[in-house]
């Protein structure tokens, strides 16, 4: 439940976002299990490599297209997503690439047995959210990035290098994506990215795009509703929930539960 809220915090809409999660989990798997690196080192390396992939994606695919329409850009990120997925499938063809849990075992809490992994999920989520919040509000680069998302032209008049900020944004969202993938990593495979992407986007939209805490709330809400529906109706319909919620929220309350009005209606 907790994993999909992290990477949605960035507010960057990118169809390949889910694939960044996939890379995070898969790289960590290779480094930790195949290359026998210590888990902490493997995790950090995996996150950094995925961040690098994010930056490369921006430079090679998004940057050359910056003068063309939004439509082309959307399709380009979709292309990138297919490409990444295919690469993932070629190098990690297994259905399940389990990463050892950070701490194994289960604890009983208030009468419910929960896996210890969940504490890592919640803890890392909290840390990531705090870090992103500080970055966006307290550092020059973070403030510049927010300026770019509000109005690129004005930002560029203020001497901000908009292109570079776009690159940073992609790198950062890839980093967070990788983290999300890692936390979820007990089993990661090549086709995990797609649904993660959709769910992350849904979480972000529920909370309101560009609103970090909204995205966190959206993630929690989505996770809960999914579990409920899977429990009450049928687990087959689980993947449907995010899609239905997404459309409904986009139409009924396009700004999300907490966000400011952003979607332009006809």
């Amino acid at each position, binding site marked *: 439940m907790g994993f999909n809220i992290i990477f949605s915090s960035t507010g960057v*809409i990118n169809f390949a976002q889910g694939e960044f999660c996939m890379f995070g989990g898969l790289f960590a798997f290779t480094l930790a299990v195949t290359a026998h690196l210590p888990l902490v080192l493997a995790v950090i390396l995996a996150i950094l490599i995925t961040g690098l992939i994010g930056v490369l994606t921006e430079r090679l695919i998004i940057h050359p*297209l910056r003068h063309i329409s939004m439509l082309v850009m959307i*399709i380009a990120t979709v292309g990138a997503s297919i*490409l990444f*997925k295919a690469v993932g499938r070629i190098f990690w063809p297994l259905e399940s690439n389990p990463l050892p849990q950070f701490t194994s075992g289960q604890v009983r809490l208030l009468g419910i047995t929960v896996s210890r992994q969940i504490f890592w999920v919640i803890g890392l989520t909290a840390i990531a959210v705090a870090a992103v919040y500080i970055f966006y509000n307290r550092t020059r680069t973070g403030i510049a990035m927010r300026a770019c998302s509000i109005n690129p032209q004005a930002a560029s008049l203020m001497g901000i290098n908009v292109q570079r900020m776009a690159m940073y944004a992609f790198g950062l969202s890839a980093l967070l994506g990788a983290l999300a993938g890692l936390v979820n990593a007990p089993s990661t495979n090549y086709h995990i990215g797609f649904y993660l992407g959709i769910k992350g986007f849904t979480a972000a939209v529920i909370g309101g795009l560009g609103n970090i805490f909204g995205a966190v709330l959206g993630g929690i809400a989505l996770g809960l509703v999914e579990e409920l529906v899977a429990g009450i109706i049928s687990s*087959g319909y689980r993947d*449907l929930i995010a899609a239905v919620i997404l459309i409904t929220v986009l139409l009924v309350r396009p700004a999300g539960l907490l966000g400011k009005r952003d979607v332009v209606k*006809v």
Partner: protein
Amino acid sequence: MMTAGTFRGTENPSTGRLIAWLKRKRAVLLFALVMASLPLWEGPVSDLISVRLLYTLRLVGIYAIVAVGLNLLIGYAGQVSMGHAAFFGIGAYTSAILATRLGWPSWLTIVLATIMAAVIGIALGWVVLRLKGHYLAMATLSLGIIAFVLFRELLPLTGGNDGINYIPRLSLPGMTINSKVGEYFFIWVIAILVLLFAQNVITSRTGRALKALDFSEVAADAMGVNVALHKIKVFTLSAALAGLAGGIFAHIQTFIDPKSFDVTLSIMLVTMVVIGGMSSIWGAVAGAAVISFIPKVVEALPKWFGNVPDWVKNYSNYQALVLGLLLVLTIVFMPSGITRGLADFVKFRKSPFNNPFRRRRWE
């Protein structure tokens, strides 16, 4: 080639009009002629290149019908849809269910499949077309997922993961089409009619309105174009064409399951439109052909060159990689697609890799 003026003096005005029409549509008609003659020389060529032409071209025709509709929506009206597999699937399931449960003839069920997809298209289009850009893309993608899950979960209707078997073959009133050649003609007659129709749509008042609202919805609105209505119109048209193609698809395959209509298909359809060339009707056909032929050609490679590396033989694993690469490379280097890019190259000696499309939009 004679000039149009030659026909003005023709005694019978309707003959003149007919000739003018033939002249205007000469590209499509020539194409139709080539396609019609294909079964005559298909055999030797198929043997030569080890690709079963007719067999593959049936699929190309089906995908071309969808891609032409999708191109009207994406290329001309600028409304992206990542969920057209849903309409393709709705068409296929409608036709399959009606034909297997009620035993209705397939020509009738295909018509009903088209209508079904159109009706659902109107309803969904009315809802989602309020959104734009990323939001529209995500919403249509979600529609695709919803449709896929419904195909899989509505067991009594769709047979779940097992799909529907023993779908009767294509038929016309009074005859059943059993042969490959028959199916080929059935599909391509429809495909060429769709091509002609789409060309007429583009040059019509509606077509101009669509281009206008792609360029700027505000400007189009100010010019008196009913933006919302036109968007729904073109969405419905593309949904109907997808339903039509899906209906035919079901009767060609005689077996359908949810996997054939997942998100991959939606993305493949968009890839066809982009590779062929957005806002180009021929581009949609070319895109459908490229995407359908790639796997067949790769399959045939061992017969051309004898030994090929193992990874070529295991192509199905790499198909997504090739599709993704093609999509990204086309978008980055040839954003107006292969047909427009090559046409510019031939006409203006302009490199297809740098064309006016790139500078058309705002900065």
